[in-house]
């Protein structure tokens, strides 16, 4: 992409900084390139799709072209004469009672993710799971889900999942494996399992824990290790520091007036984030007057979505955040020590924050992120105690993990044992430690010393490659299991489909270990819960079957949430000392003199620790904030980029303790200076067809003694370039002020300020005759106060509407197909801008500019105000897309939909057409859902009730930011929101009269803090 390169070259950061400093009034910008406004950037925008269809390379003469056109025209009619191919109907031999062909069924189950569950309802079309929805009865879901749950259904059908048991790389069988396992175990029986090791990921499943305990009973000398690369060791160690025991910390954001986050991305990264996001935004919704809005302070080392929601944000290096925690603790009277030198410029900020916290005793909340060292967690606990928040906004419970060990210690112990030759048989149940273990442990080398190595996993990955045996694992939609949510609530995981590739579950494997091969997961899980039931915990059910049915039906087992636990804080006088580990402030100060950098390791926002590397939806999903797709990058601040002379896409060498990676640079406004952030999960060698070989492997640099951040990284330019693909410039609405933002104070003074920001032409200012919408009139409101930019809507829409994945190259030329996009806007300086998110689906304009230019009437209005797209009429002129001011139309330049991979066919939503090449498409307001509900309502001769139709984006939204309904009904939620003073439409000056409107965002800054 030469254009991109040029426009990146022309970004002069110093000049931009100067311009922003001079700017008066709010100035919003989408990216550095836009801000620079170079000629190349303009050219990039002028093309409606940034890069038009490739020029015909073969030299077709005009005459030849006309001949072809003539022939095509003449023959066009003939195509209509083909007969429809014969189709078959294949009815059941014995029909299952509950299936009505043509109607989906929903089953409650739960998706385990890094140990914690999110409860889901899975839509099944005649036995094929097609779509995941949240379970309103589950405490971690409340009806919504996140991107991982949405995309998990694609992983189920992934044709690259491992499909067969392998032994030394060649095809084998489960029975042969059992035999080999039996032989290995025979030797272990004699030595009480002294050479037997189990390695799992985080285990919260009561059944799995029960089985492992049974294995350990049978082999008393055997050991169970747990390792998850995105572990929560620091939270555990912090709790141990503060209370002398490991506890689970739960938050009640809905009860907090003032929240301080110390590098804690609680809106997207915590177990229970989906529920936390709902709680948090329940206090951001405006209503009029805007009372009781919470205030969020964020101190963070990497720009996150939580940081983008902050009223006050302080970007510091990860190692500096402990000093902030200490300074706040000092203000709260917990510590008696000097404020760190580098914090002196922020002293007023910290004091104002502390006063704010003190003013809201019992209704404030301090949250520490998993990346922060244990001391910060302990300080957060101490401050919450001091502020009287415990039992109100903070609740402590027993840990949800069956055995809450520190994962890194656990892994180190295993590696040491392997090194010493004490391990004869290692069973790896899930996870991919060869790829994810810290580089300095050299897991792969030590693994080779183990005589019997078996790996159970979804993919034949890096770990499978180095194990003697690999057994395909069942997906969570394929097998019975159970799991706990962040609050302890247990759910039964029930399968929606028989294992597609003959996988086995961890339960079945452990059962074989226990001498009961062939026992089904179903029987194993029921055994656990039968025992629980027989302890008399659920007297309300008449027998176990009744209890079991209700547990499956609700998706969450009643009364299994952990009760709050009282803990006593054990703070030594003078607080906890900082252990002298890398990354502590003293070390950092030294580092500061040497001008070496700090590096942050973070899970990738979309592919997590690498487990979703082969999931096309998640790969193509623009990562929040950077909007990068299909790659990871080294994120740096604009100031650092200026100093090193770096621009987006420059390949740099990152060196740390003699280990080295080459990574492309991405300049991220708001990133703290002198540090660089890398996302884990890329650079896979054996991920599958999509995930293998893209991005760089950041695990290579990750040390075991500093998992999250480390000081002493050197960065040097290589002079090479790498093509990164970001969607931020695509579908640009060219700098018109589309996000409207004010403060609570402004709103109180002048509630109409939002309307004054734009102009709405009179409805009769059009040449076309008006149209009265009499029946239903569908409309949507998106509340920018609630939108956290998590992208769940984008994936939900993709799953619901059969939207294809196009690949990096096509995204690079602006052809991504997402029907809803989340635009990111910045306001303010380069170093610490405010960040805003704006989801943009089709506006369903009443005066739709796309409709009047279609030569074939393929996009027209219906009587309820929907701007409908008729695929079978579309001839692909793309005039509509050219004329759409919102840039929400997507064109199938190629045959993007996968018509050949059998397994993906089963995933498709049968209620939505799979589009072919040459057809325009766009958001339909989930027409299939409207029609389904309408048909049911009409059959019952009643009007459609408000809230009965949920669009896919609305249903998935963790914060209920999207509301859809009938705007002709004044009592509907959507109509009431549209009547709010904050309601505005975008580009209404064009008299498009969009049906999708927005509620302007209000910020709630602390008046004591001067904000420039």
């Amino acid at each position: 992409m030469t254009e991109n390169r040029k426009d990146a070259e022309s970004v002069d950061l110093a000049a931009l900084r100067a311009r922003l400093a001079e700017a008066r009034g709010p100035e919003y910008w989408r990216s550095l390139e836009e801000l620079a406004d170079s000629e190349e950037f303009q050219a990039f925008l002028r093309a409606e799709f940034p890069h038009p269809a490739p020029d015909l390379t073969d030299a077709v003469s005009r005459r030849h072209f006309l001949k072809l056109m003539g022939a095509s025209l003449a023959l066009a009619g003939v195509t209509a004469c083909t007969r429809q191919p014969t189709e078959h109907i294949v009815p059941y031999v014995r029909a299952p009672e509950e299936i009505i062909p043509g109607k989906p069924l929903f089953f409650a189950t739960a998706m385990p993710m890094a140990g914690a569950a999110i409860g889901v309802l899975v839509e099944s079309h005649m036995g094929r799971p097609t779509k995941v929805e949240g379970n309103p009865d589950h405490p971690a879901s409340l009806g919504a889900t996140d991107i991982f749950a949405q995309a998990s259904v694609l992983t189920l059908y992934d044709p690259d999942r491992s499909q067969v048991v392998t032994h030394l790389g060649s095809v084998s069988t489960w029975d042969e494996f059992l035999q080999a396992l039996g032989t290995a175990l025979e030797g272990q029986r004699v030595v009480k399992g002294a050479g037997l090791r189990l390695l799992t990921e985080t285990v919260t499943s009561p059944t799995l824990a029960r089985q492992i305990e049974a294995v350990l009973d049978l082999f008393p000398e055997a050991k169970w290790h747990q390792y998850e690369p995105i572990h929560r060791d620091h939270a555990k160690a912090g709790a141990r520091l503060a209370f002398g025991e490991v506890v689970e910390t739960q938050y009640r954001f809905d009860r907090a007036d003032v929240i301080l986050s110390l590098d804690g991305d609680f809106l997207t990264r915590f177990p229970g984030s989906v529920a936390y996001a709902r709680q948090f935004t329940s206090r951001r919704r405006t209503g009029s007057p805007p009372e009781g809005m919470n205030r969020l302070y964020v101190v963070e080392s990497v720009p996150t979505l939580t940081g983008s929601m902050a009223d006050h944000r302080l970007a510091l290096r990860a190692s500096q955040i402990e000093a902030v925690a200490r300074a706040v603790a000092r203000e709260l009277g917990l510590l008696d020590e000097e404020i760190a030198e580098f914090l002196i410029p922020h002293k007023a900020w910290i004091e104002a924050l502390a006063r704010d916290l003190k003013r809201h005793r019992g209704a404030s909340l301090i949250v520490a992120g998993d990346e922060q060292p244990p001391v910060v967690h302990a300080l957060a606990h101490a401050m919450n105690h001091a502020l009287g928040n415990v039992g109100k906004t903070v609740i402590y419970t027993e840990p949800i993990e069956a055995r809450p060990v520190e994962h890194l210690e656990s892994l180190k112990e295993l590696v040491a044992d392997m090194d010493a030759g004490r391990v004869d048989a290692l069973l790896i149940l899930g996870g991919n430690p060869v790829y994810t273990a810290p580089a300095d442990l050299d897991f792969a080398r030590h693994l080779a010393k183990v005589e019997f190595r078996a790996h159970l996993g979804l993919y034949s990955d890096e770990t499978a490659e180095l194990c003697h045996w690999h057994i395909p694992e069942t997906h969570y939609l394929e097998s019975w299991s159970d799991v706990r949510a962040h609050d302890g609530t247990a759910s039964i995981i029930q399968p929606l489909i028989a294992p597609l590739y003959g996988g086995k579950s961890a339960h079945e494997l452990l059962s074989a270990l226990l001498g009961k091969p062939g026992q089904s997961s179903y029987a194993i899980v029921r055994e656990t819960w039968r025992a629980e039931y027989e302890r008399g915990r659920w007297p309300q059910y008449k027998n176990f079957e009744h209890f079991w049915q209700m547990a499956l039906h609700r998706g969450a087992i009643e009364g299994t949430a952990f009760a709050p636990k009282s803990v006593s804080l054990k703070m030594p006088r003078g607080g906890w000392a900082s252990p002298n580990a890398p990354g502590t402030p003293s070390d950092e100060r030294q580092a500061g003199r040497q001008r070496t950098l700090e590096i942050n390791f973070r899970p990738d926002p979309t592919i997590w620790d690498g487990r979703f590397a082969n999931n096309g939806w998640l790969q193509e999903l623009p990562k929040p904030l950077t909007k990068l797709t299909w790659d990871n990058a080294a994120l740096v601040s604009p100031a650092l980029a200026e100093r090193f002379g770096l621009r987006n896409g420059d390949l740099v060498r990152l060196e740390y303790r003699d280990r080295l990676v080459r990574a492309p640079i991405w300049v991220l406004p708001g990133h703290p200076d002198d540090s660089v952030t890398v996302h884990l999960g890329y650079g896979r060698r054996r991920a599958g067809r999509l995930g293998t070989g893209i991005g760089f492997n950041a695990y290579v640099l990750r040390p075991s003694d500093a998992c999250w951040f480390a000081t002493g990284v050197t960065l040097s330019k290589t002079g090479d370039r790498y093509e990164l693909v970001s969607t931020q410039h695509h579908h640009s609405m060219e700098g018109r002020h589309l996000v409207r933002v004010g403060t609570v104070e402004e709103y109180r003074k002048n509630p109409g300020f939002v309307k004054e920001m734009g102009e709405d032409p009179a409805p009769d200012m059009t040449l076309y005759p008006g149209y009265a919408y009499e029946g239903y009139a569908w409309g949507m409101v998106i509340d920018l106060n609630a939108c956290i930019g998590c992208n769940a809507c984008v994936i939900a829409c993709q799953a619901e509407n059969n939207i294809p994945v196009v690949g990096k190259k096509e995204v690079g030329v602006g052809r991504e197909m997402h029907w809803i996009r989340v635009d990111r806007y910045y306001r303010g300086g380069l170093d610490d801008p405010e960040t805003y998110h704006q989801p943009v689906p089709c506006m369903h304009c009443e005066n739709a500019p796309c409709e009047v230019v279609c030569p074939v009437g393929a996009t027209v209005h219906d009587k309820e105000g929907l701007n409908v797209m008729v695929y079978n009429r579309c001839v692909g002129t793309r005039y509509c897309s050219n004329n759409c001011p919102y840039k929400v139309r997507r064109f199938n330049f190629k045959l993007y939909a996968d018509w050949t991979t059998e397994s993906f066919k089963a995933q498709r939503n049968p209620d939505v057409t799979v589009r072919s090449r040459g057809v325009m498409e766009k958001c339909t307001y989930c027409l299939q859902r409207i029609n389904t509900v309408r048909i049911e309502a009409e059959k019952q001769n009643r009007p459609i009730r408000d809230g009965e139709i949920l669009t896919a984006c609305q249903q998935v939204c963790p914060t209920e930011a999207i509301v859809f309904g009938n705007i002709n009904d004044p009592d509907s939620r959507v109509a009431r929101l549209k009547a709010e003073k904050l309601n505005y439409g975008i580009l209404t000056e064009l008299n498009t009269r969009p049906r999708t409107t927005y509620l302007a965002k209000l910020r709630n800054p602390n008046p004591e803090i001067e904000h420039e």
Partner: protein
Amino acid sequence: MAQIFHRSFNVIAKLSIVGAVVVLAILTTVLAAIDRSSYVTRVNVPREQPVPFSHRHHVGQLGIDCRYCHTTAEESRFAGLPPVETCMTCHSQIHKDAAMLEPVRESWRTGKPLQWVRVHDLPEFVYFDHSIHVNKGVGCVTCHGQVDEMPLMWAVNTLRMEWCLQCHRQPERYLRPREEVFNLHWKPTGDQLALGRKLIKEYHIPKERLTDCSVCHR
């Protein structure tokens, strides 16, 4: 300079203009005729099935209700095809050795389903829903014809959009009382148009929006 063309070419030139129009017209007519012929539309062409199931026998002579086999016509978009189990409810007792029924028995024994040929086949971008039509008073016979007289199943209508629109534009011409939907021999006693208009009101049929694209295409 000598004339290149002979005088007679004037006539030929004029004729060729007329001729081109005539040829195009004939071509169009022929193509249209082919397109509407039963060769393409398969209207009135009996379709071969794995088992020569006769609606004439089962519906016409035995009087079995449509819903005995097409169980979901009232509640789902798909009317439903009976599982082999339904066939076997009778055929495990009656004609239980008939050679004609061997595929049915084989399916029952082996669990391998029968593959029926779809007679009424809509394009994939059309989303037809049986339940709403049945519930709003569109009779089975209106679209499927007198199936009680068909020894093998055939389509009596093209199921093309122009055909659908006849009713979506003027439903009053085709509607019948809900309780007569499954009656293959119902005839309006009075004026169909008057009855249709009454039913439109009674069944709350939003006639004006039935021609919206979004009703059938999504």
